[in-house]
């Protein structure tokens, strides 16, 4: 992007250090959450023991718990949270709809559909295998949604926000309906599906974060490139075009980023819809609508939300645990409502 696109006409230059301060606070919050996530768990370990485990000097069991269970899980939670937060902010920006979540592009529905197909018809049950199917399903669904929405969009440049949103809803619902019809026929895939759809970080391959990390990284890069363009699109498509922006290209870029981010998150952790929906709103309360600040804060906030919910899920029913997807909304909703009631609303 050129220097001109970095400060597009019409977007406010951030006042002073405030947005930077917000990013700083978000980073600190995420670090605290990561530390908590490594320290707290079913096995009671003191911070000293955890440190010994991290450095590999503690008892074998401690080292195993910390290095093989807690650290991978924490990294995965952070990765999933960042991906969903940024994808949600992009989705809300592109559809200009506060109800949009990353799943709106058909990502979750597609992932769930191909997952059930893989289990039911191809007999694939290994976690490593199903992740790839979930990812492929997410990608295919979002390509389908984008293609259909483009056909129905304005002639000049890609889908309009409304056609994108509606095409996404229609395709998602269709896939979910077919999935649940498939699942009702077969108990074993019903079981797999209902646990997958609750959204969880436990029981994952410790390689899961490595599996998705490249895709998330690529998605984040695309999102960063897309951010200034998204600010201009917020002025309306005609204005954006008048300012010399290629609307269709910006949309395609955004959709690619959302697919990579949300697709990889959903493929490993299931449809954790609340993060993608709410993290951008929370971030917007503090940063305002400028996507260059909104996207990073939404990502950091999303990761913090996921990790905190995961820690709470481990604490409430010890030694068992609640899936993170379940805890998230129950813990996050009251917080979010309090925020909505107190703050002046930052509209899209």
């Amino acid at each position, binding site marked *: 992007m050129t220097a001109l696109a970095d400060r597009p006409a019409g977007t406010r230059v951030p006042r002073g250090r405030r947005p930077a301060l917000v990013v700083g606070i978000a980073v600190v919050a995420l670090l605290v959450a990561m530390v908590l996530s490594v320290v707290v768990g079913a096995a009671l370990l003191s911070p000293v023991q955890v440190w010994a485990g991290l450095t590999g000097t503690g008892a074998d069991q401690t080292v195993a718990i910390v290095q093989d269970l807690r650290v991978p899980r924490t990294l995965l939670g952070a990765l999933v949270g960042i991906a969903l937060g940024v994808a949600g902010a992009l989705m809300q920006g592109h559809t200009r709809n506060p*109800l949009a979540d990353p799943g709106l592009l058909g990502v979750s529905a597609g992932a769930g559909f191909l997952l059930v197909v893989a289990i039911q018809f191809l007999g694939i049950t290994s976690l490593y295998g199903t992740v790839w199917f979930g990812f492929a399903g997410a990608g295919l669904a979002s390509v389908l949604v984008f293609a259909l*929405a483009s056909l129905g969009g*304005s002639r000049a440049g890609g889908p309009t926000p409304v056609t994108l949103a509606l095409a996404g809803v229609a395709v998602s619902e269709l896939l979910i309906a077919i999935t649940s019809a498939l699942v009702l026929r077969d108990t074993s895939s*019903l079981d797999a599906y209902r646990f997958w759809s609750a959204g969880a970080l436990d029981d994952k391959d410790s390689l899961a974060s490595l599996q998705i990390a490249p895709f998330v990284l690529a998605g984040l890069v695309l999102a960063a490139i897309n951010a200034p363009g998204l600010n201009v699109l917020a002025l309306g498509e005609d204005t954006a075009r008048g300012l010399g922006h290629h609307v269709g290209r910006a949309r395609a870029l955004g959709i690619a980023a959302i697919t990579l981010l949300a697709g990889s998150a959903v493929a490993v952790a299931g449809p954790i819809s609340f993060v993608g929906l709410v993290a951008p709103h929370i971030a917007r309360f503090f940063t305002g609508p400028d996507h260059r600040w909104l996207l990073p804060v939404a990502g950091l906030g999303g990761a913090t939300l996921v990790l905190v919910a995961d820690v709470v899920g481990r604490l409430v029913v010890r030694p068992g645990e609640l899936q993170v997807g379940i805890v998230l909304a129950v813990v996050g909703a009251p917080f979010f409502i309090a925020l909505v009631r107190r703050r002046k609303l930052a*509209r899209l």
Partner: protein
Amino acid sequence: MREAGVLTTARRGFRAGPVTGVWRTRAVLVAVVTAVLLVLVAAVNLGRGDFPIPVTEVVRILLGGGDPADAYIVTELRLPRTLTGAFVGAALGLSGALTQAVVRNPLASPDILGVTDGASLFAVASVVLAGGAGVSGLAVSPVGTPIAALAGGLVAAALVYVLAYRQGLDGFRLLLVGIAVSSAAVSLTTYLLVSANVQQAGQVLTWLRGSLASRSWENVVPAGLVLAVGLPLAIVLAFRLAALELGDEAARGLGVRVDRARAGVVGVAVVLAAVATACAGPIRFVALVVPQIMLRLSGGSRPPLVGSALGGALLVVAADLVARTVLGEAVPVGVVTVVVGAPYLLYLLVRRTRRRTV
């Protein structure tokens, strides 16, 4: 925006008591065609089954004649199911049209007001908790689940309303609070679903997809009553809805009490959706998609009310017909409404290149 400008140059307005409106030939035409299709599909649906009855005979029975044995099958066994489907569909379509118009968002539906997810939570709880612990005989019985669903829908919607109310009811705040409350309800439902045993989970999942199986007159009456009250009320509120669409300031200028009008519309939408969900389970897609389909067919700037009600009824009854004749009873009607409705919306989206605001 140009809309059906070919048909009329200046539209005639009309007034009948508290109802005012503009005559839109195309909207009326769409509504009439939908109504005719609805009657046809319903008649075919009534004839289909293990004991097929020709459509002409069905019509004769409905008009009061026909063979007594056939009449028994049609009126006692099959009519309740079809009527429940039609009433539930109409209530959902209307509720969706009202919600989308009042918050000015095409993705909104009564789900956003917490109704559907609250209803689902209470209903699932009535199956899983009562079934698991064997506590309450009432809650496990088929009567218990609809009542639990109705209560859940109304409680959740009231919660959303109370939490969103802050010096008036702001549409955007309503959406955000609705998202939060619905998500929390969905999470708790998922928790119950995961902690249930697999038979209960299957049963619950079937309910959660919406079903019209084994409906009797007990289901028809509440759905019919709420529709009989809700539809006229919605039509009376239509003028205020049109004013709200112009923005709060403009609506105030037109003499509409914005908060009261919005509360009224939301209230009607909530009750319609809650009763519909109690009768047939959460048939989610109808309230979201039917108003958008009818909007694209009829033209105009917001979803038509009567048209959406008729369209919802048609979609649900047609889906029931497809489910019963093509796919077999095992597939819940909620699945089929999506399979029938989603491709049609996609077709309309692809065919139309015009842009819409709502």
